[in-house]
């Protein structure tokens, strides 16, 4: 089966100060996969996302989205940062945060109006947060904050979604709700890339996986490559797992 390549990463190398965080990453992500990026702490998972999204400038390497440089294709890509990366005491409401997802399409200076508000309300409904639209964001629970971030990305109506640990610090109900939305996105032909920590749930949630530890260890369908061998190579310990099969 010939699959279109959504994202192509070539020779990506990133270093903070002297220490390389990502070393010579080559990665092709096919269109329509729901992919987990797994690896130990400090493996460079978040950094990979940030350098693909041009938030961090890499030392070398290039990223193309559907064959063109990322900078020309930003509108196709949505990002869900780690929940802890922002100050939730910021004076604003849930609806307002979700509206920010429309800012990219609006461009400079133009203000969001009724059309943008409608999109934001639809996204809030999708993540089950409509009743909380006017809630000050600091008064939301961790799971609700994560849903708000997800809704903000959904508003962008992108083809590709990058999510940094969307299941971190959320309860079981929220986790189920989020994975439901991710699966719907995949069904709609979108490509979803998720930095993920819980190895137990990889086979259940995802169909594609990338093992990362500074270097790329392996990438491919979960059914074929999610095994003790790759886990051991990635995590450096002898990984006896009852996860697969």
């Amino acid at each position, binding site marked *: 089966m010939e699959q279109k390549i959504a994202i192509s990463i070539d020779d990506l190398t990133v270093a903070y100060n002297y220490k390389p965080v990502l070393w010579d990453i080559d990665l092709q992500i096919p269109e329509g996969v729901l992919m987990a990026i797994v690896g130990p702490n400090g493996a460079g998972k978040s950094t990979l996302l940030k350098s693909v*999204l041009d938030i961090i400038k890499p030392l070398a390497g290039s990223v193309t989205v559907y064959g063109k440089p990322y900078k020309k294709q*930003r509108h196709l890509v949505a990002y869900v*940062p780690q929940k802890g990366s922002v*100050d939730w005491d910021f004076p*604003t409401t849930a609806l307002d945060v979700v509206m920010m997802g429309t*800012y990219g399409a609006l461009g400079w200076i133009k203000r969001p109006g009724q059309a943008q508000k409608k999109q934001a309300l639809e996204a809030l409904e999708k993540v089950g947060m409509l009743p909380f639209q006017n809630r000050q964001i600091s008064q939301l629970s961790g799971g609700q904050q994560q849903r708000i971030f997800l809704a903000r990305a959904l508003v962008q109506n992108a083809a590709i979604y990058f999510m940094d640990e969307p299941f971190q610090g959320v309860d079981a109900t929220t986790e189920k709700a989020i994975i439901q939305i991710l699966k719907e996105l995949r069904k709609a032909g979108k490509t979803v890339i998720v930095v993920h920590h819980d190895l137990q749930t990889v086979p259940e949630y995802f169909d594609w996986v990338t093992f990362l530890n500074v270097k790329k260890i392996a990438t491919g369908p979960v059914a074929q490559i999610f095994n003790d061998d790759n886990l051991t190579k990635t995590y450096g310990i002898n990984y006896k797992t009852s996860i697969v099969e």
Partner: protein
Amino acid sequence: MMTQYLDLLMTDYTLQIITLGTAVLGALCGMLGSFAVLRKQSLLGDAISHASLPGIAIVFLVLGVKDNNGLLLGALLSGLVSAVFIKGIISKTHLKSDTALGIVLSTFFGFGMLLLTYIQKLPNANQSGLEKYLFGQAATLLASDVWLMSSIAGIALLIVLLFWKEFKIVLFDADYTTTLGFHVKFIDTLMTSFIVIAIVMGLQTVGVVLMSAMLLAPAAAARQWTNSLSIMVFLAGIFGAVSGILGTAISASANNLSTGPVIVLVATFFVMISFVFSPIRGLLFKQIKLWKNRNDLKLMKTLMFMYNIVEDHDNISHPHKIQLLNNFQGYTKKSLKSLQAEELILLEKDSWSLTEKGFQVAKNLYTQQS
């Protein structure tokens, strides 16, 4: 004293100019200070204002500039250089931002003080009047200074309105803003530049030492009263302006106290009032709410204890001796009275009974817990 001051304000042109100037300055600083506070750059303002001192001294020494605008231009340049140093130290070394700010602040300010004392030892030094930039001297404000301040405040307001959406999203989530295709560095630089300009505008009135309070105090006070960014910025502007006007009034009617420090004290007074009395985040209301909740919980525990006794009887309103409650430490006469006031129990001399309402409340409490 109030009427005296108002008479003075009506007739004294200089006082009118100074009042207008401090009001505009307060509004400008309050508005831009909100962005500094939310960007977590509160200390940056302090460092930049202290760091502007050597600029003033160098312009005076080297170029022989004596007029206010020229000196402020020197302050602006030296403030901007310090900002570049701070950002450079943070990105090129392992030092944290507070350390970088501390180093730059004290080095620049120390150098500025050194130059200032040197200047004072020069012949005809007393004409330089540079000391006024240390603590400010509102009395030296001229109509032209106020015009300049007002124009800059106008431009700043225009920029804020124009780039409102961009400012808001960068303040909340800069990384995400990058992914939307906005030039975050441009927005950031625009914001920081206006904060630096506001600082420089305030040097003549409030001085390098106290200037950061003008930025931070109105914003900190405003944050207490609202959960909306636009209202916060607006309120901070109002608080700043009122601090300016009140500060000038107090200093003019009380033996010409130094205006800058009085303005800062008034602004700080707003902060204290806001911290204690704001209904959303104020300490007082939080404490009252806490007490009330704890009290309610105690009452409910007492009610539960009663419910457990009553449960075994067929008739729920059968009276029981108050002594029965002695096994339970949580009750007082007062708490029993509160329960009666809420019609949850009936008290008669030395006995009590649950009402129908009390029984239902306790029963539902029980099912919720289990």
